[in-house]
């Protein structure tokens, strides 16, 4: 059975022709992977990175502003966190569909949902980070004649950085995971090859494993990248205690 390619999606090969490995549906056929990297796996990977990147980017911007706001007006953080927690319990599949009447079956729908989830993960961490700045340091900064803005830029934000990065790690990794579900709505991302492979009566192992490995690999790579970034941006958080 040949599955027709949509305008933007990858071409799923005819299942049953090709090498012996493919025909007999062994665990993993590297020949298939190399043959179809260009038309199936790579586009999916790129789309996935796009989906994740946009979601995390927008989510970061909103969460950051919201956290700064809640930092100044403490009463806001309770309600925002409460709403976020509730938002997070909504199944992604369900949230996508609930958004469809508003934004249709488009990337926007997926992004709105992903951004919402990212917000939930980032906001508490950002607030915690800002609140964990030692009171002594703030006191002294005031006493030294820092303006409000200088205190924020030179003391509070740098000290909140480790918590911010921790939040980003969770957010990025989770979003990579969540983005696979986008395939239920749109033919995009690494979820799509898996989704299609599952629809077959006898699911094509290699495709599942290949796309899966890429998704996991992407998540882990992002995590490691952020850890490295934290080492560079906040070396003080790693130095030992006397």
């Amino acid at each position, binding site marked *: 059975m040949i599955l027709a390619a949509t305008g933007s999606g990858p071409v799923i090969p005819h299942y049953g022709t090709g090498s012996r490995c493919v025909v007999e549906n062994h665990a993993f056929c590297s020949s298939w992977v190399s043959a179809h990297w260009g038309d199936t796996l790579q586009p999916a990977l790129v789309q996935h990175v796009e989906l994740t990147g946009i979601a995390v980017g927008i989510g970061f911007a909103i969460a950051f502003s919201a956290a700064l706001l809640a930092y100044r007006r403490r009463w806001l953080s309770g309600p925002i966190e409460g709403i976020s927690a509730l938002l997070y319990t909504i199944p*992604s*599949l369900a949230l996508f569909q609930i958004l469809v*009447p508003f934004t249709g079956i488009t990337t926007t729908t997926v992004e709105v949902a992903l951004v919402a989830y990212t917000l939930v993960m980032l906001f508490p961490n950002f607030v915690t980070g800002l609140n964990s700045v030692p009171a002594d340091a703030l006191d002294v900064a005031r006493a030294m004649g820092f303006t409000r803005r200088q205190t924020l830029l030179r003391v509070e934000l740098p000290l909140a950085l480790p918590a911010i990065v921790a939040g980003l790690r969770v957010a990025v990794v989770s979003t990579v995971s969540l983005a696979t579900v986008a395939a*239920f709505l749109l033919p995009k991302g690494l979820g799509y090859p898996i989704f299609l492979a599952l629809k077959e009566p006898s699911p094509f192992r290699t495709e599942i494993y290949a796309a*899966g490995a890429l998704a996991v690999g992407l*998540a882990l790579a992002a995590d490691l990248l952020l850890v490295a970034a934290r080492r560079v941006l906040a070396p003080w958080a790693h130095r030992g205690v006397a």
Partner: protein
Amino acid sequence: MTSAAVNLHTFLDAIRFIGSNWHLLLDKAAQQLELAGAALGLAMAVVLPLGIALGHLRRGSTVAIAGSIAGRALPVLVLIAAFLTVFGIGFVNNMIALAVLASGPILINSYEGVAHVETNVVDAARASGMTAGEVLRRVELPLALPLLAAGVRVAAVTVVATAPIAAIAGGGGLGDIIVNQAGYGFDGVLGASICAMALSVFAYGVLTVLERAVTPAGLRRLAELEKGNRRRETVPVANIT
């Protein structure tokens, strides 16, 4: 019709669907809870003792951390698909996939809960002649209970919220309707989505109440105070798919 009216119309259709098919929806919801429950049970049976043991010995923190990262980084879709190729379609592959998902929060929380019991307290217990087992049972576990309960709650809500995806691999539940727009129409899909959302919120509510009930009042206050000090928070990991 204006788009707002369109939207309202669509949602009304969905509500109507819920109204006329509530029996079916209830069945599906029960099915979903069954799957979630089994997965949670499996995860707790395997991972809870492991986490507690590691925490008690205060070893293997890297294992615990790695476990929780893995829980986040492995998309459920991938897990379900992978296990399907091994176990075939049906209940088992979904249960195991969801159990893997639930393991993350349970592992990290049980480890941290037990390991972070103040060493002074543990030393005092040991000094008063308790065996290791007694220290664990009478001192560490009760004090670790708040974190443990929180971990189980997060895991449970995660699993309930993620279960709909299992529909594509024969897992049943409300997901069956959501992925089957051809069969139930969009009002069905939307209706089931709303129900799935309600189910999740309901589970969240119930589990929060249960968690409070299980935690002794004094410890709860302590946990709240400590939350401010702890650098790494247990971030809600519900809905990792």
